């Protein structure tokens, strides 16, 4: 399944609805380009909705880490929303579960961002 990323704005938060596979190649590139685009526009509050992400490999995990670092380095926050069990498990075993701020309710997640 082709990876897709659709961004929408809710208050001061940019929600990116991701779907498909985040793997080496196209999927990772789509995520990278999306984050670069948002960072270039000065968006500081990013919520990645992974609810429709069916698969992430180690390259995809690396891309999530890179996205987190990119946004943080420009003074923003990147949080994750709606992890599937498989993605949840992957973040657990790679110890990244404690690095990312992970939410399961969109409204609460949007409200959790600091006002900038």
């Amino acid at each position: 399944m082709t990876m897709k990323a659709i961004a929408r704005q809710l208050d001061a938060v940019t929600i990116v609805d991701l779907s498909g596979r985040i793997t080496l190649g196209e999927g990772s590139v789509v995520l990278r380009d999306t984050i670069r685009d948002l960072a270039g526009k000065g968006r500081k509050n990013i919520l990645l909705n992974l609810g429709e992400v069916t698969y992430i490999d180690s390259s995809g995990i690396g891309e999530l880490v890179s996205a987190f670092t990119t946004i943080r380095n420009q003074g923003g926050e990147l949080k994750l929303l709606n992890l599937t069990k498989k993605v949840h498990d992957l973040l657990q075993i790679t110890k990244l579960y404690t690095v990312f701020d992970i939410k399961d309710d969109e409204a609460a997640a949007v409200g959790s961002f600091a006002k900038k």
Partner: protein
Amino acid sequence: MNSSATNRVSYTLDSTLESVNRAEKKALEMAVKSGFGDDCQHNIAMAVREAAVNAVLHGNAYDPLKKFIVAYEITPQALVITITDQGRGLDPEDIPDPLSPENLMKNSGRGIFLIRAFMDEVKIRNLNPGTEITLIKNVGRKAVNAEEEVQ
């Protein structure tokens, strides 16, 4: 495709991402055939994907002149998958721990770790040149801590 026995099949593949996808898809098919449950099927396919990515990206470096071989064997005890590349060779001792604080936020370096997490046994052999990695998932038991044997 070469086949030396009923339950063993091997493929010689180009160093491309399409080949990685093909290796992963076949791994899933063999995991189903071996009778593993859904989670195990997913984990086996992912381990093979990670090993195939290593072969294509780090081993053969996308060199169109270099191939990698994936062999799948179903035995009564296990599903055994061996992936061999023609790269410069991998020293398992040089693989950093992705869980250590200095590596946790790195963008790469988690492939072998995930392979070890998902399989029951992992053997890495430096062929000088080339690397052979053997992934073993035992039938009828849950994943245990992976062992590594350096030869």
